[in-house]
């Protein structure tokens, strides 16, 4: 938001970028294969789902909120869309229905938080359980497959556009739109305002409840979009899909330098944060770190990055 404010904040903003480069350099030294085009595409594709959710999470966190229910939202919307398709509904219609459901589930979070004045952490902890439970009820605990061969649906997760995986294209297009919204629109400005000082925002005539409901809806919509990509890639909807996705998304946002107290941060940082996580996931595999130990390294890197960031700000 205030890139031009002073030198310190510029430094703060490029810190995640430097971190990303550093990790890439280290991994490449240990295994030059990392930099191959096919592997990089692979990384980007793996990143795209987390990034989409993290973009939405950025909006939510900028308003001073948090959403733990996104993983469950992903599972439920994926399952419902898949269920519709499996039962023979027009795939396009089923997908739109899934997106709409995502927005509605998000809006429910937003309404509970804004109108019910429940702390976002608690509200979404509860809806996380509810949405996950509904998924299990709907799927009866079993994966849904047999989704037909609609080209649009298949392309969404598996297709290429001029050699670039469609999920990556979707991620970049969404990034562009969301970046624009945050930077140039009154809605974006209000998101920052509500997170920066809700009382002052209300007293300036801003309807903060509405802004909150919108950001949770947006996140729900993006979670549903991720669900469709994931379902398409796996050719089935898993009732356990999206478990822990909320944590990866929050980690990406925080790695990108957005403040958990709201009002400060930017979506470019989130993209970089998501890339850091994706590069780590892929790189640790490539350099042969045992999978159990990977988690330890990943956690440590996140911690280190955030600590370094804090050092710079003070």
């Amino acid at each position, binding site marked *: *938001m*205030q890139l*031009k*404010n*002073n*030198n310190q904040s510029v430094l703060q903003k490029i810190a995640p970028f430097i971190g990303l480069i550093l990790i890439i350099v280290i991994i490449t030294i240990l295994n030059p294969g990392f930099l191959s085009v096919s592997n990089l595409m692979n990384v980007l594709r793996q990143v795209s789902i987390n990034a989409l959710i993290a973009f939405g999470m950025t909006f939510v966190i900028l308003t001073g909120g948090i959403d733990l229910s996104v993983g469950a939202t992903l599972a439920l919307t994926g399952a419902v869309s898949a269920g519709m398709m499996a039962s023979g509904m027009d795939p396009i219609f089923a997908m739109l229905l899934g997106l709409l459901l995502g927005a509605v589930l998000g809006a429910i979070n937003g309404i509970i938080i804004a109108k019910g004045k429940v702390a976002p952490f608690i509200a979404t902890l509860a809806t996380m359980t509810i949405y996950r439970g509904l998924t299990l009820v709907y799927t009866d605990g079993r994966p849904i497959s047999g989704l037909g061969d609609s080209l649009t649906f298949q392309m969404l997760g598996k297709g290429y556009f001029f050699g670039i995986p469609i999920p990556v294209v979707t991620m970049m297009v969404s990034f562009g739109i969301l970046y624009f919204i945050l930077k*140039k*629109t*009154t*809605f974006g*400005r*209000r998101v*920052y*305002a509500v997170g*920066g*000082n809700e*009382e*002052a*925002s*209300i*007293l*300036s*005539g*801003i*309807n903060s409840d509405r802004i909150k409901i919108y950001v949770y809806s947006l996140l729900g919509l993006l979670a549903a979009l991720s669900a469709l990509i994931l379902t398409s890639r796996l050719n089935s909807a898993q009732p356990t899909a999206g478990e822990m996705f909320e944590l990866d998304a929050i980690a990406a946002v925080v790695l990108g330098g957005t403040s958990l107290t709201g*009002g*400060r941060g930017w979506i470019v940082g989130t993209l970089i944060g998501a890339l850091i996580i994706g590069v780590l996931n892929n790189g640790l595999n490539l350099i042969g770190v045992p999978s159990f130990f990977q988690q330890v390294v990943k956690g440590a890197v996140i911690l280190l990055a955030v600590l370094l960031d804090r050092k710079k700000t003070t």
Partner: protein
Amino acid sequence: MIKMTDISKSFSGNKVLKNVDFTLEKGEIHALMGENGAGKSTLMKVMSGIYTRDSGIIEVKGQKVDFTSPKQAEEAGIAVIHQELNILPHLSIADNLFLGREETIGRTGILKTKQMEKKTHQILLDLGLDVDPSDPASTLSVGKQQIVEIAKAISVNAEVIIMDEPTAALTDREIDNLFKTIRELQKRGVSFIYISHRMEEIFSLCDRITILRDGEFVGERKISETSFDEIVQMMVGRELGDRFPQRKSTIGEIKLAVKGLNRKGCFEDISFELRKGEVLSIAGLMGAGRTEVVQSLFGYKKLDSGSIEFDGKQVKIDTPKKAKEMGIGYVTEDRKSEGLIVDFSVEENVSMTNLAAISKNGLISKDKERKLYDTMVKRLGIRTSGPHQAAKSLSGGNQQKVVIAKWLGIEPELLILDEPTRGVDVGAKKEIYSIINELAERGVAILMISSELPEVIGMADRVLVMHEGKITADLSKNEMTQERIMHFATGGEKLAVEEQ
């Protein structure tokens, strides 16, 4: 006691202090004055180790010092009460007072809560505040929180106490008690640096005065050898003229009429009328319910009952958004928590209330936003290093102007101002008065809450006095005197205008 020589300090290339000299003698009360943004607070922060200076020498009791944290300054006997309050609202009053130097049983870390509470009670009583020290600090009014801050500084047995606008939120009685305590401590050899924009206070309390202008040392005087006018002259660098500018407005038809407004526990049976071009002031002690009344008018707090007529039409104002759309502006009392988004730039703060006007189809126009900023900065004489300066790094007075700027942008028909000149320097005060006058002359109805009686009398066409949630008097221009307003503010009998 303290000698600062040749102090310079800049923030990202912006020179805020330029070779400033400052000397504090033992046992004196030394005033520091200057316009908003002159560098007073910055100088004090440099002295107490919050900011590192770019150059210059600081000596305490003849010894060169280099504080790198406020803690070190405190250990050297220098306590600072900052312009911004540092109260932790959820901790008890006693916890706040003893924060960081709690009394414990030996080294166990077990708190001697009872003992600390007893001491707190005594210290606060000396300052004329009788409260239960185990209550959370958030139950205190801003003014009383300020007193807790003062008590904190006093209780560390500091040799030097720096007070940065301590009285901005205090009532007259609280100020009296504070001054008594200061004089008491002075007799015990404590020295004070006292920053304030209130001339009367400086003259009744201080021994010497140092004046800064635009980050430069202008001069030092003995209070007994200087005058009001000389100080103003030194501060602003020119003659200022009348304190309250003339207004030539014609009072028109009724803009706002409220009848029987009630809000449980806050105020009851509030009725008044406000006309176009009129400046109506609400006077009263802190806590009389004035802010709650205007917040209810603005749709921020709910009304239990009562009716509001705007332009002769019955209206219901249930959100600030609606109030804004009707053309009502509200310059809030507490600029930090209600007026500004401190992390936002000045430009973004000004835009806050005007997003619709500077955008098309939801897209913000950079040009329009900059134009609005430029207009407002010029119109109000706001001192910034540029549109991108963060609001939090502005001086207090300039922050206040930014809050006013927010609302001038909407071209309000009714402007509510809650303590509009708190913490604002003499020159800027006059500018704000001129703006109010200019608005009134254009037919804007003005509702102004103020605790400064000279300001009420100098500016208002009519004054409502409130006491404990009720209107106790409605005085016209020629009925207003300080004594009269104080009489009703402290609960004198209702002097109904219709009876006269």
